[in-house]
């Protein structure tokens, strides 16, 4: 599978998956059998896009998401993020990109249960080598952005599901990433809380954040401006509902 990235005139972030021929794919070797999770996916995502990746289970959307999040590298093909070819990077460089360029939001929140909201948000900054004082200042700022300034010293079990996911969003944003990458962000939330979280996403997008989310729920995907549907490791449909660059 391949991604290619193109610089925007303003020098902003994009990623793009571009396919020249059918031999670009992400393969997983399980036992003796080679499973090809993605085939010939050619995708280009511009800065400040709001993209939903949809598809049934087994369609390869998780694989695509892992590739975009630099948790995995393509077996063949290329992925260019902000002008940098990711597929050739080593583990440490991938970790650095995850740290600086990607903000993950998970279905299960993945907060450290014994740490306060503030400390959870500080985590990416620790790995970025930011000083303790600066970390606290920035983490507090990120929590304020998601309206949790009054819950900073609460632990996850003292927060509601929606609040936990907002802590996770603050954590994803704290390093000012190029891409906010959400994997079924409302999968563990009831419908009203889901709407609350999507409201946060919409507002972030409105303020210029590039968002890519993986979901199988149509009403969640409806918030995005572009829906990409994967079937059997291939893009089966692309549907653009709004201009990719929301000029704010």
């Amino acid at each position, binding site marked *: 599978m391949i991604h290619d990235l193109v610089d925007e005139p303003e020098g902003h972030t994009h990623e793009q998956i571009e396919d020249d021929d059918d031999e670009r794919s992400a393969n997983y070797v399980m036992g003796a059998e080679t499973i090809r999770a993605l085939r010939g996916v050619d995708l280009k995502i511009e800065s400040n896009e709001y993209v939903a990746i949809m598809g049934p289970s087994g369609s390869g959307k998780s694989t695509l998401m892992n590739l975009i999040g630099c*948790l*995995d590298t393509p077996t063949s093909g290329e992925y260019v993020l902000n002008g940098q070819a990711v597929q050739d990077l080593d583990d440490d460089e991938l*970790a650095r990109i*995850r*740290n600086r360029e990607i903000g*993950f939001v998970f279905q299960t929140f993945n907060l450290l249960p014994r740490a306060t909201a503030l400390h959870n948000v500080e*985590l990416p900054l620790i790995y970025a080598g930011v000083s303790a004082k600066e970390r606290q200042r920035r983490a507090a700022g990120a929590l304020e952005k998601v309206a949790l300034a009054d819950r900073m010293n609460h632990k996850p079990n003292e927060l509601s599901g929606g609040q936990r996911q907002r802590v996770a969003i603050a*954590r994803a944003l704290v390093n000012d990433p190029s891409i906010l990458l959400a994997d079924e962000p409302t999968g563990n939330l009831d419908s009203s809380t889901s709407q609350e979280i999507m409201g946060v996403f919409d507002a972030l997008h409105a303020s210029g954040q590039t968002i890519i989310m993986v979901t199988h729920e149509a009403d969640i995907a409806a918030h995005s401006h572009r829906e990409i549907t994967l079937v059997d490791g291939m893009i089966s449909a692309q549907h653009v509902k709004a201009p990719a660059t929301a000029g704010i």
Partner: protein
Amino acid sequence: MRFWEGIRLALTQVWTHKLKSFFSLVGVIIGITFLIAVITIVEGMNRYVREDFAGSIFGVNTFTVVQRNQVNTGPQSAERRRREARNPELVLHDVEVVRAATPNAKQFAYMSDRFLSEVRSGGERRPNVRLIGGSGEYQTIQGWKVDSGRGLTPLDERRALKVAVIGSAIAERLFPTTSPLDKPIRFRGQQFTIVGVFEKQGGFIGNIRDASVLIPFSTYNQTMAQRREEVEEILVKVNTAAEIEPTIAEVEGALRADRQLRPGEDNNFWIQTSNDLLSAWNTINRILMTAIPGLVSVSLVVGGIVIMNIMLLSVTDRTREIGLRKSLGARRRDILFQFLTEASTLSILGAAVGIAVGLGLARLVESLTPLPASVSGFSLFLALALGLIVGVASGMYPAYRAARLDPIEALRYE
């Protein structure tokens, strides 16, 4: 910065799982406790032997001539002991030979002693007493000070008077309420007059001295000696440490000539210095110091394996956390460092607890027995260093496993 972050995280982990942490540390705690307790006690005995014991038995710049070596150690000692048992006993003639060979001695004395099953005065009795017949300067050379009354004088010696200076333990036992001075004391059918009481010594060796009775050598020779003119020890004190070796050589030569030993023949007497005692102690010390590392390392290895298992469990328990940290930008070395720090912190904490318990044990031993305790900075440093080594060694494999986890798999782990 990241270093302190790691320590803080590790301490949080340890504190969160207090009981688990404690049990995982039992091996290390026991090992370090043992190390500290033994080193502290041995170190204390060391100082005691060097500073008090040797000096108080032999005095400074002093050597003694005896029939045979009384401090036997080493593999050939049994054979040597048999040979030395055939050495002639010392007699007053030997005293004159040694005296003639040491004209520049600062002090010179000789003595003989025997064990008394009891001494009596009035209705009171004190069992197990050492009776010493000492020549004029014996008490001076030994540094024994008189607490009340007087010590022995040349006149006592010349006239072979039946006078005695007694140890404080005997005085307390026989005369709990009155002064012992000028009172009679009886043993082996003879009556002596008490003219003085020695200062209380106390302590490990002092207990023996406090239970001694000193009478003039001439009196001893006439009334108590098992053989005529028997002498147990000849004591020579020289002016400076540098004089010890040449003076010993003089004495050795004089005695060999007097006894008509041929060149190459072994001495049939023994000259003892405080070095003999120290070397005997050093042998014991060396054996202990060789045995301790073996014993300690067994418990530390066991402790390390326990820590490794706990850390492996911890890695499994926290697979998702590791995946999350990696997704947030933790590099392999960050994860490696985190778990190494955790294992080391755990282990050093164990060492710290071991140090505390070990010192407590040493103090306990000190208060219950006459053995002194001496804390050496080296042993504390060693204990902490061992803690760190055990931590790093046992954390290495679990930390490596954690660092190698694939972030995708780890995040998906249930």
